[in-house]
């Protein structure tokens, strides 16, 4: 696998586990370091069978795959010493504690890099390691509000809404994986590791699609429009009603999307549901006609109305099938069960199964995030139980069963 030679100590909890997951899937030896009573991520629901328990958190199942697991009490001086020793064998450390916590334990970047200058040490936090909001209390919703995506989603004049599955820490974790890999490449150039500082607030700003720049470049604030977006003076509707639910149709003019709109109107004309004049509009140059005033903007609203009338008479399946044969930008708004049962993902053999401890049937997981020509992503092991790999990993430090028992009794592991 691509990252087989590398070891990662993954100290993150629910605020950063996707970062180590990406490296683990690419083949790195990622070791979760949990407190003796288990990671707080094991308390994140939903739970298998709706029955909370450290080995039943679906969050843990999803984001600890391909990782080994050990326990180590980082608030105990002996635990701190153990971690320092383990760090000597690691290429990367990932952590997501509140800023200052790791340094207070003597396990900050400055502490560990003093002995181990090659170490790449990535800190994931809500707002970054320093600054006026570095110690703010935060949650997913708070971060989506702070980084800009939240204000953009929702009905006009209504409260903004978030995605119902928390997203912010995954954005931060993804940025962490990117920057951590850049640091690996830098190491060959500068001959040492470094500290990577990731802010979830900045990471989620990517989900504003650069509209966070609007006021800085003299543009109007982006309007919050349920199921659509504003493109210059135009309202672009993205979510439309079909006969039996909703679909996404990207409907606009211009050289990128105009040809798709042309084909949509060809179909509508074939079905006798639009005029020849509408079909034969210049779907590439139409925007310029509106902007120059050659055509009134109300014409755009009328055209959207014509499209809406056409779509609502047809089912999602009809629209999607025709979209494929005519190359149109239409897909159904898909529910989670439909995603899991999709033919496309099935045909690409996307899903993977693992037996999970204490669960009677193999569990189906979202599969490899990319396909590779060689060295494919493999699902080598399911999420570890608490301390599952203590013996084999601590053996590397010369600790035998007796020593581990002693550490266990003293609450170190």
């Amino acid at each position, binding site marked *: 696998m691509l990252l087989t030679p590398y070891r990662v100590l993954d100290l993150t909890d629910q605020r950063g586990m996707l970062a180590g997951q990406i490296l683990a899937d690419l083949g790195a030896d990622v070791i979760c370091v949990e407190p003796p009573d288990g990671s707080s991520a094991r308390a994140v629901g939903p739970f298998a069978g709706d029955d909370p328990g450290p080995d039943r958190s679906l969050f843990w199942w999803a984001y600890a795959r391909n990782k080994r697991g050990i326990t180590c009490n980082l608030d105990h001086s002996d635990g701190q010493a153990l971690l320092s020793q383990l760090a000597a064998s690691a290429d990367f450390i990932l952590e997501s504690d509140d800023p200052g916590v790791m340094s207070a334990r003597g396990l900050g970047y400055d502490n560990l890099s003093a002995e181990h200058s090659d170490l790449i040490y990535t800190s994931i936090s809500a707002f970054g390691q320093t600054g006026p909001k570095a110690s703010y209390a935060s949650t997913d919703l708070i971060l989506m509000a702070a980084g800009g995506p939240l204000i953009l989603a929702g009905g006009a004049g209504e409260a903004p809404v978030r995605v119902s599955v928390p997203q912010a820490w*995954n954005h931060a974790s993804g940025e962490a994986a990117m920057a951590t890999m850049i640091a690996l490449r830098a190491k060959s150039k500068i001959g040492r590791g470094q500290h990577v500082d990731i802010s979830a607030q900045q990471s989620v700003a990517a989900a504003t699609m650069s509209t966070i720049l609007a006021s800085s470049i003299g543009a109007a604030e982006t309007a919050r429009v349920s199921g659509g977006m504003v493109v210059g003076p135009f309202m672009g509707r993205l*979510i439309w009603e079909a006969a039996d639910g909703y679909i996404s149709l990207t409907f606009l003019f211009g050289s*990128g999307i105009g040809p798709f709109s042309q084909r949509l109107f060809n179909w509508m004309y074939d079905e006798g549901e639009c005029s020849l004049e509408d079909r034969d509009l210049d779907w590439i140059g139409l925007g310029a006609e509106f902007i120059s005033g050659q055509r009134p903007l109300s014409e755009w609203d009328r055209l959207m109305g014509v499209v809406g009338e056409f779509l609502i008479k047809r089912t999602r399946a009809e629209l999607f099938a025709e979209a494929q044969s005519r190359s149109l*930008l239409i897909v159904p708004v898909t529910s989670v069960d439909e995603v899991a049962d999709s033919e496309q993902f099935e045909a690409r053999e996307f899903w993977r199964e693992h037996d999970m401890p204490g669960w009677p049937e193999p569990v189906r997981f979202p599969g490899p995030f990319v396909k590779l020509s060689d060295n494919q992503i493999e699902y080598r092991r399911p999420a570890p139980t608490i301390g599952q790999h203590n013996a084999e990993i601590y053996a590397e430090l010369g600790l035998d069963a007796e020593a581990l028992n002693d550490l266990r009794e003293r609450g170190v592991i």
Partner: protein
Amino acid sequence: MTTVIPNVPAVPTEGALAGLKVVDLMWVVAGPTATRAMADFGATVVRIESANRIETARGIGPFHDNAQGPDHSGLFSNMNVNKLGLSLNLGTQEARDVLLDLIKWCDVLTESFSPRAMRAWGMDFESLKQIRPDLIMLSTCLFGQEGPLSRVAGFGTMGAAIGGYIALAGNPGGPPIGPYSAYTDYLSPRFALPTILAALDHRDRTGEGVYIDQAQAESSLHFMSTALLDYTVNGRVPEQVGNADPAMAPHGCYAASGDDDWVAIAARDDGDWANLCAAMGMGELTCDDRFADLAARKANEDELNGIVAGWTAEHGAIEIEYMLQAFGVPAQAVSNSAAAASDPQLQHRGHFIQMEHPVHGVATIEAAKGQMSETPPDYRSAAPSIGRDNDLVLREILGYNDEQIAQLAIADALT
């Protein structure tokens, strides 16, 4: 005082990725996000465009001074900082020959065409491997290179729909609303870039090239794994629940006193609830049985939200944020772009960078997201106008002479 960084397109020599050579045939958001991160950290990224098919991002806002035009898109500007711009009309054999020369030069080739395009030109990985056995190549599109939907052209707005995100954002019982715009475009680069860099590391150790087939819709499912598992394990279909959270109450966006002024508030536990009551000057609520613990607050959530909303309506969102954070309660004004520009934390992080721009004087862009102690990002050049760096790429990088360049122009290869 704000520094405006000069706009000097050049082959970078400093930075974490200095010396890395990338030929970038991707467009809009998903692909360019990944190559922008490489360019920020010193990679030479040659971005290929054509005036014959204007890149979609150039037509998407926010627009500088609300004016349209190919160099007015703040989105394009933000996605393509630090890249070199080469215009090639790939419909001509001469332009494809230039591309082939660039492929011989580069370490990494990235493309986001629909799956048949590269094959039609004989530039699929299997063919290119014959001339570049150590090539790293990324093909990224919505549905991947194979499968029944692989020929469906797709933007990230469609990825958001078919990946389940649209149906997971909205109010209970209401129409699906979805996260803003092309949601999967923001997620897929987080998987593409680490894979490219891992492949480079592998290549350096083994000499082997790597082909990466990314279906953006598949990568993006890893941001909602728990929802998928809730279905595959528990048989439950997660649905849109507004801003409610099963483990927190109150938890929502509340209207504050200003115009389109909202504040996000979350009580993670009973302690946060008690502190929120104290901050609101309603300490008596902590003794109210309706709100005694999470279960009670969830059962009486409408009343609870009504009380909080009644209080927030009397104050500005930023004022509420400061008041509640002083009590340790998670709270944040819901930032629009003006609020973000004056956010003290984003300022502290240097999130907004100002660069000289030939059309606008100054263009504001977002900084690289990762802050690195030893190899900071470098901002060298504004996003290219179409063909801005043709000379630099053709002469300095490929070593073409006047005669060769004139021939390309005659063949209409450089438009």
